[in-house]
């Protein structure tokens, strides 16, 4: 039997969840025994080269590119996991939710304390840039998500336990200390 294939991505996140994946330390050696990686920053495969079993996504959707990547993942992965607070509820980037996007952009590029660096007061508008969404969306508001692993970041042991359970089909028992929202 071939090994299950995993893909990962960080959308509007800080890569902290990916760091936490690496925090499984030497178990990473076991992990590569268990699974194969496809599109992921871990192996630097940029585009899907095959259908995957598990997609793990960090970060919410704050722009159009995030949405497109997320939809690609949904297309290519049987199971999709929201990893971390940002994926689950938008996280810190979502602190702008509730504030009109106009106000946010003006604060960032026209009125904020750091706009001195932007002497011409230009708002980035190149057609090559992703478009900013009206708010930061939790992943499950855009595509169907199968599992959620909370935490900021989710504890490495939680990620490990969840992935192993998914791959082996064993029951997942999560100790109290592993589920935290911070």
């Amino acid at each position, binding site marked *: 039997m071939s090994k299950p294939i995993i893909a990962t991505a960080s959308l509007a996140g800080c890569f902290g969840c990916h760091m936490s994946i690496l925090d499984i330390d030497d178990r990473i050696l076991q992990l590569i025994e268990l699974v194969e990686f496809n599109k992921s920053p871990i192996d630097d495969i940029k585009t899907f080269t095959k259908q995957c079993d598990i997609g793990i996504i960090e970060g919410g959707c704050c722009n159009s590119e995030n949405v497109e990547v997320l939809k690609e993942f949904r297309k290519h992965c049987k199971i999709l996991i929201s990893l971390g607070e940002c994926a689950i509820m938008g996280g810190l980037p979502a602190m702008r939710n509730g504030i009109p996007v106009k106000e946010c952009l003006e604060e960032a590029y026209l009125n904020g304390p750091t706009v001195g660096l932007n002497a011409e007061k230009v708002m980035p508008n*190149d057609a090559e840039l992703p478009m900013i969404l009206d708010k930061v969306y939790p992943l499950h508001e855009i595509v169907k998500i199968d599992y959620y692993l909370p935490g900021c970041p989710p504890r490495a042991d939680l990620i490990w336990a969840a992935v192993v359970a998914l791959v082996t089909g064993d029951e997942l028992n999560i100790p109290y200390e592993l589920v935290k929202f911070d």
Partner: protein
Amino acid sequence: MKDRILNIVENFEKDPGRMMDILLEVQSEFGCVSHEAVSIIASALNVSEVDVTQTRSFYHFFTCQPVGKYAVYVNNSVVSCMKGMSEVVDEFEKVTGIKFGSKTQDGLISLHYTACIGMSDQEPAALINSVVFTELNREKVRKLVADMRAGKAVQEMFTELGDGINAHPLVKSMVKNNIRKAGPVTLGEYTVGKGLMKALGMDSKAVITEVKDSNLRGRGGAGFPTGMKWDFCSRESGDHYVLCNADEGEPGTFKDRVLLTERAHMLFEGMAIAGYAIGAKEGILYLRNEYAYLKAYMESVLTELRNKNILGKNIHGKGFDFDIRVQYGAGAYVCGEESALIESAEGKRGEPRNRPPFPVQKGYKNKPTIINNVETFCSAVKIIENGSAWYKAIGTPESAGTKLLSISGDCKLPGVYEIVWGMSIKEMLDMVGAENVQAVQVAGPSGICLPPSQFDRKIALEDLPTGGSMIVIGKNRDLLKDVVLNFMEFFADESCGSCVTCRSFNMILKNSIEKIVEGHGIKKNIDEMMAWSEILRKTTRCGLGQTSSNPITTTIKNFKELYDMRVKDVEYQSEFDMSKAVKDSCEVVGRPAIIHE
């Protein structure tokens, strides 16, 4: 301003318990209760500013910013919408050049929405500076706005007066009674003072026994046995209070409006009888602000009754003292809940209390209090006058007497009907001239939406209990959009917000039904709404939360096909719309939105 406000506070003896009256006077005099006013009131009453703001911000007729010289409050309840509110709104916006929720630059006119104002039989209706305008249309709106610009007094903006007491010099209102059917009890023959005279000749316990024996049950909708309530209360020690619930806020109800207009004497007499029965000296009529147009008349009736010694000291020489004051609300549906009403009458935000203790134990000012509906007190007068046996002989074994119905919506003869309990919905529809009926909303939004297959059911406490609201919904209506969504918006606005589940679920359920109406719903959403409604019902403190999901649950039960038609049978559906989501940001930075799908 400061002196005037201090004067008002003085007039109410610097009593924080009269906060509502203080705020009402300030609002009416200055067009708002500003931060400055709050600060003056707070220091005069020696309470904190946040406490004044707490009350001020709870009621929607109190505003922080000044309303227009003419403040127009258009009713946006279901029946008003059915009868053409959108045209009225459109015309107001067109001729004033402003949107609802705002004020003209010169401060002359402000436009507001308000919940049901008790005029469902003559919609679309609006309040302008507390004066009622009914059966509005585009033409009337144009004339009204022209009159406002000409600086006319609001009372002079109409010429035709309503019938009965509506035409009384102290009322002078265009409101019509629309009494379509008078029965033997509340709208039957009535002689002022007869019932009270008889009661005073009886032992107070005997009065309670008489009411108990009559099987009279609360007419506000809950149907609690009135005599039992009076009995419980009379057994408590200390000062007692009689409160009358005239908050009539259930959309589609207006029968108390008619009683207050045509049977004010009877109501006050009923309160006095109750006062005698339970041993109270003071009564309060809690009257919704929407009916403030009756204010001068109410005061004149009270004066008249005092002059006749039906109220006042040593009534009829029997050593019984009793007087009544009128407490006005300021726009909050939840104050129809009895303990919220008490809080409001005490000058606080209208938040329902936890039970126990019950109002009969600890009510107004924490003293034993009975609270009854207007119709209940009126019925009690006739019961004492004619005896319990007479009363019990009317109606069904479990529902004695008559019931006033406020019937509105898609029918030829909307109005008030005093019916004998036990009438079927079908008989009722024939009576009001209703054809092609899709549904009848029984007992208002918090009641049930009844399909034609159940029109043989009886209007009675044991089958279809109602406080009186009956809204006929024709086949041409979009039940989910025109009715259910409107009701859910209403509840989301009117929840006091104290219980987590009521505050949140009403919003969540409103959003769910909106999603379905807009065509984004999936099958799973229907089950979710049922499950969430059940949690809401089980976890809230008062009747509002326990019934506010009824518009959804009763239509899912009785009109499932309307839901099935609108939802998709898929496991997951996102509401995310890329073009909508990027529209604002693209506009702000000045770039075209390029959407790949």
